[in-house]
């Protein structure tokens, strides 16, 4: 599989999709998008990349093992869930910071964003984990 055009496209495509998924994640609270969607979008990009370059390349790009990414996702979700307890609320209550920022205007930052990021990372990680495992086994099992 040495199709130069495909490879170029795949590289470009992955970058575009990565940026787009982060955008989808960030704007998810106000417009269509959110952690799940962003996660699947990013995973789709990786799958495309992986089909062209093989599963080992995905593994090198994402740096950590997929299972570690899943762990990070779950950990973020847990942090977002536990944080309000230290502020004296029930767990999973949203904590919000609202402030005026230059360039972006009014920002609403809160634990739900951390939660959503956790979902994003977790969903990406788990789809990649499944895909990579299956690609691995198919590669060796011929």
């Amino acid at each position: 599989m040495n199709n130069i055009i495909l490879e170029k496209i795949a590289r470009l495509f992955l970058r575009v999709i990565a940026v787009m998924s982060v955008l989808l994640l960030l704007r998810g609270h106000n417009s269509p998008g959110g952690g799940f969607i962003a996660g699947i979008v990013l995973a789709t990009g990786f799958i495309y990349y992986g089909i062209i370059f093989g599963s080992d390349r995905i593994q090198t790009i994402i740096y950590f093992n997929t299972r570690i990414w899943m762990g990070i996702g779950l950990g973020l979700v847990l942090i977002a869930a536990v944080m309000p307890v230290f502020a004296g609320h029930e767990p999973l209550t949203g904590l919000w910071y609202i402030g005026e920022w230059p360039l972006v205007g009014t920002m609403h930052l809160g634990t739900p964003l951390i939660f959503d990021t956790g979902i994003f990372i977790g969903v990406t990680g788990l789809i990649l984990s499944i895909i990579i495992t299956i690609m691995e086994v198919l590669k060796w099992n011929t």
Partner: protein
Amino acid sequence: MDNILSLLIGLIFLAGMATPLLYRIWQKNTGLYLSVIPLIIFAVLIAELLQLAPRESSLLETSMGFLPGMEFAFRIDGLSLIFGLLISGIGVLILLHASYYMAKYDHQASFYTYLMFFMGAMIGMVFSDNLLVLFIFWEITSVASFFLIGFDHHAEKSRQAALQALLITGFGGLCLFFAVIITGNITGTYVISELLEQSIHLGNHPHYYLILTLTILAAITKSAQFPFHFWLPGAMQAPTPVSAYLHSATMVNAGIFLLMRIYPIMGGTMMWKYSLMLTGGITMFLGAFFSMGQRDFKRILAFTTISALGTMTLLVGIDTPDSLKAALIFFIVHGLYKGGLFMIAGIIDKSTGTRDIYDLHGLYKKMPLTTVVTLLALISMAGLPPMLGFLGKELIYEAKMQLPDVSWLLLPLGVGANIMMVAISITVFYELFIPDRKRKPIELKYKEKELPLRFTVGPILLAVVGLFLGLSPKFLETPVDNGLFFMGNQSAELSLSLWHGFNDVLILSIFTVLSGVLVFFIRRPVTRLIGKIITWLDRLHLPTLFTQLINKYVKSAAKNTNLLQHGYHRFYLLTFFLMVIALMGIQIFRITDIHLPELTPSPIKIHVALLLLVTACAVVFAVFAKSRLSAILTMGVVGYGIAMLYLYYGAVDLAITQFLAETVLMVLFVMVIYYLPEFAILSSKKSRLRDGIISIGVGVFITLIVLKAKFLNLETPVSEFFVANAYTEAHGRNIRNVILVDFRALDTMGELTVLTLAAAGVYSLFRFQIKILKKKKTGTDEPRQDDNKKMHV
């Protein structure tokens, strides 16, 4: 003083759990040190006994318990004191005895654990003031006894005997549980004191016969009454201290205790009387009769125990103040002499290496102390003065004679049983201790003087106590009187004395003894005869029959399981779907008043209808597709079609997710599909037709349900809350996302966990395969690069 008893009982369990540790420190002396706890309990109970007022019971309330309504409140009255004293007192002696007897066994630590648990449960049972707690302790004794009988667990016989005992007593336990629950439902309380105070009697309740049957079943299984008596001789596989404790003095008496406990609540009716008299009478006679045919000392004792238990059941069944008094006294008598005799069996076993009484003779010269003790115990068993046994037997005769309508049957049975008891007592003593000139003298492994005091103290003390109580029975009056008072017999006149005067009873006693001596002289033919009867009855050998029954049960269970769990995936599903259709059908036809559209359905849009038509075609095509790839692709069409539907009705996020998820799934499927087998039509035409009809049925019913659900409950006020608060509370304009990450974040957390598990599942499915394959392939050749080609078909 108040709660010391509950603390002590807790301490027993605690000590039982800690025994494995304690055993490391104390080694062979574990039993010696452990015996301190029951000794303290015994002392406390003696103190209670001295304080006991003749017409009062004291309650030890605690708020501790398994559950609310199941507190460990303890009730101290004459009945529980008598049982408790005997259990704790003999417990001390047994622990001392066992600490020497068990010295060479393996797993001693667990032996003491079981024994302590048993002791705690037994004491807890007799004192507990709550029927449910009583039941729990009752079950603990069954389980502990299972472990103790099967203690020698590498012997097949022990395991079988243990299982048999467990099954039978466990069955009784279940009966007791149901009886307790029904009683609690009827009376509204499980607390025994309240039941007694309110003087509730269930005799007129419609469920009375059910409750009584269950209770009696519980009692007669535990107390080894006919026809459940056969587990007790089997239980003699246990180490001798266990037999001495569980199967003579304590556990088997639990059934008698239960009967006495619930007597005020449900006793005294015709059914109570006749069922108990029948089983008790038969058991009493059979036990005594068969004991003559045995050779093993322990088995002889087991059968006499059965007989004694039968006597007690019979006495409770006769149901006169005198008979209840006799039953209580006889319980004390029996506990004292039988515990002692079992321990003597242990001593003889240890010193000579055999328990066959016909192999032994002339031990008199070598074991003088044992001889005296045995003599005292046997005199008590035979019911001769001056031991307490005499008093017990006199009372029994008196009780039996007071019952004119059935005494014609009971008296011969009772006298017959007692004749056999006298005969077996003399036989045992003669065979064991009187020297036979023709045979060689028995060589002892241990001389009597070498045996430590803790080993021999048990039977000596018990015999002395029996003698003492026989000579001055006044000591028993208070607790017995108190116990009887709470059994509802206010008027029982009580005077215990050894000498009753020259009356009918004494004549009967003399007759019994003389006949017993006569039977002893003709014991050879009698033994042979009984042996023949036993062999003849062996065709109906109950333990074997029981084992066969259990085996048959297991077999039929396996058969039924195979019938239901046939292993055909599609038939499970078929059953499931058929049941669903049937149940839904019933429900739909039952609801006749279907309120059709409360809301006007939305107008039909032609393009959406067309979209659905295409999707429907795709899904039908997927069902009948011949090639795998076309099936997958049409599945994709279905998914996308549904996504379009979402999009059309304003669910943007849903549509995006559906598109993406469908894509990922298709990619996965296409990757794997070429490693999966070709489609093949495996089922026959008939079964396809059947499945088709069923699936169409499911579809129709789902449509009906959906329509009903659609028109029944539509306005969801929950959503309005989300809509109203999404921005003000959660600062989000995408209400759907706000629900996911804020309002219902816990669900989302759970979901992410599920997904992670799925990924972990996939990974663990292939982890080893990948490793093995890698090992196999690398070294021979690199994985071929063109493998990936197959993924782009």
